[in-house]
């Protein structure tokens, strides 16, 4: 095994790249869950974003159009979940699973003609001064713009939930929809907006996967990333800052196991490939053993203004 072949600068840089899809999806899902809705369709929305983003980017030659289209497509798809759970009062768990199955089917249908193609390259942002710093310049400040967008999004969500009136209403709806309704807030509208936002974020995450991280389209390429994003929200106890930590920890594990595989570590490949999932389970166990702190009170319950 040759650990010397692992370059720490590239390691940190690639951790950021591998964490970003999950970070984007998880921060969106956190807002959805803060509004009291459990959308288990993250995987389906992510993979739809991945394929739509890739298709649009390849056809237009512009990766940013890809990201916009991915966000739009996944947000529209998430609205189908919104209509079913908010207006037709369907079970959120079952509907989320359905959304995932629909997304997986839809994506492989759309993606067939694009298999084996290459995504248009996305340019790195050069920040004068910061990007030229000796080690950190290459490590932290020579990335594509989406990484910074994802980090800004975390800050924005944190500030929105903590400091704005709209954020307070969203949390109230999530904590106790009956009380929020009694106070005159539009529970269904707030939730639909949250679902829409979550869908757009998941779409961006998926597109980041197919346009930057891999970068090409293969069927089923999200490989559980959406589910891991859901786990990270639990890990984070529904706090934006901890979602960031969780996503980067997870990105770290993924990159590390890939590096170990490449370096020929004396560990079975199956164990290394399965390690991100195993570690997610272990982390979930530790978090749940501590007690489910911070779960919104109305999470996963349907709201009907009849009582």
């Amino acid at each position, binding site marked *: 095994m040759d650990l010397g072949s692992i370059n720490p600068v590239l390691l940190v840089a690639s951790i950021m790249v591998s964490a970003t899809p999950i970070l984007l999806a998880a921060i969106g899902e956190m807002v959805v869950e803060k509004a009291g809705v459990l959308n*288990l369709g993250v995987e389906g929305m992510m993979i739809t974003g991945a394929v739509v983003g890739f298709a649009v980017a390849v056809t237009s030659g512009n990766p940013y159009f890809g990201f916009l289209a991915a966000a739009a497509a996944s947000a529209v798809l998430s609205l*189908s979940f919104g*209509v*079913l759970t908010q207006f*037709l*009062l*369907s*079970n959120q*768990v*079952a*509907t989320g*699973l*359905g*959304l995932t*199955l*629909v*997304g*997986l*089917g*839809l*994506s*492989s*249908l759309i993606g*067939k003609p694009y298999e084996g193609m290459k995504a248009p390259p996305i340019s790195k942002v050069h920040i004068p001064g910061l990007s030229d710093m000796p080690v950190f310049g290459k490590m932290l400040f020579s990335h594509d713009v989406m990484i910074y967008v994802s980090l800004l999004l975390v800050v924005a969500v944190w500030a929105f939930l903590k400091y704005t009136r709209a954020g307070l209403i969203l949390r109230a709806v999530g904590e106790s929809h009956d009380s929020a*309704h009694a106070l005159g807030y539009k529970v269904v509208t707030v939730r639909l907006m949250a679902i829409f936002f979550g869908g757009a974020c998941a779409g961006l995450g998926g597109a980041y996967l197919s346009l930057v991280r891999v970068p090409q389209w293969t*069927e089923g390429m999200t*490989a*559980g990333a959406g*589910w*891991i994003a*859901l*786990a990270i929200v*639990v890990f984070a106890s529904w706090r934006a800052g901890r979602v960031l930590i969780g996503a980067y920890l997870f990105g770290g594990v993924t990159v590390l196991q890939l590096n170990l595989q490449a370096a020929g570590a004396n560990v*079975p*490949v*199956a*164990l290394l*490939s*399965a390690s991100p*999932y*195993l570690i*997610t*389970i272990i982390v*979930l*166990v530790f978090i*749940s*053993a501590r*007690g*489910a702190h911070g779960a919104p009170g109305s999470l996963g319950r349907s709201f*009907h*203004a*009849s009582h």
Partner: protein
Amino acid sequence: MISLEKRPQPSRLWTAITPIFAVVLTMVVGGLMFALLGVDPIEAVRTIFWDPLFHPQFAGFSRPQLLVKAGPLILIAIGLSIGFRAGIWNIGAEGQYIMGAICGAAAGLAFYPSESILIFPLMILCGALGGFLWAMIPAVLKTRFGTNEILVSLMLVYVAQNILISVSTGLLRNPEGMGFPGSRNFKQWDATHNAEIIAGTGMHWGVVTAFIAVIAAYVLMARHIQGFNIRLSGEAPRAARFAGVNPARIILLCLGISGVLAGMAGLFEVTGPAGQITGNFNAGYGFTAIIVAFLGRLNPFGILLAGLLMALTYIGGELAQLMLSLPGASIQLFQGMLLFFLLATDVFTNYRIRFGKREAA
């Protein structure tokens, strides 16, 4: 203004007819999708739902496939439905299915080339055990630590898939297979071959087990006190606890049953239709079974019908791929839509639609 009014009890009529409603809606929207793909929608729907059974040329081959495909779907869905009734969401049946196949196959291969008649029963037992143990991981984690069983059982699918790839290229690889990945072929080894019981019907031991499971599940859910406890835990968890139902036991029971059934389904598949352990012998039955469970209204006999219908879409989908060059993924989407429409039309079961002005709530 249209508004919804909660029914005092779920409507029995609507419970029965929403699946039909959902199938029709799926056919209509699916037909539109096929039209977009440049295929005549009527012909596509006929190819998927009619030709596998009645086409003069293909039906002879595809009719037995109906049971072959429905067997594992029904078996897994029966197990899942018991858990879903109790509000226990095991969505990792695919992993339990894979682990059952691996454990059962490994038990059989250990005795190669013996022709003892005891080998096959032993393999079934080990298959059930493999699925059971894999399902016990989320079950024990949930009862001990309160860990979310949805996420754990799903993560374990990916772990199982990695194990599957590893054993099919390593531990269980056929030593006489010229280095190709994959285990020995069970079809060429009479003692372990899960062959058709009646030739030309597709009826193998897995299908028989599925039918037994349907009846057993009906007896359990409708006639046995544990079935009542399971339903009570799902519908009124607080009442269940006051009635002295131990929630941990219900979790272990439900996940245990679904693990056993999924594991057996895996074993029957690998010794029968699939023939050998390979990196991709699993055809996603564990996930489709979720649709089957819902489409069957979580009712054993409903699941029987839903499993047959879903098997039909699999076979019809393959036929449509062949004859109309319809992409294979469109069938997956078709099945997903079916679940979606079912959940959407389900609103009529629990709510009544009222036209007119909404009164103050």
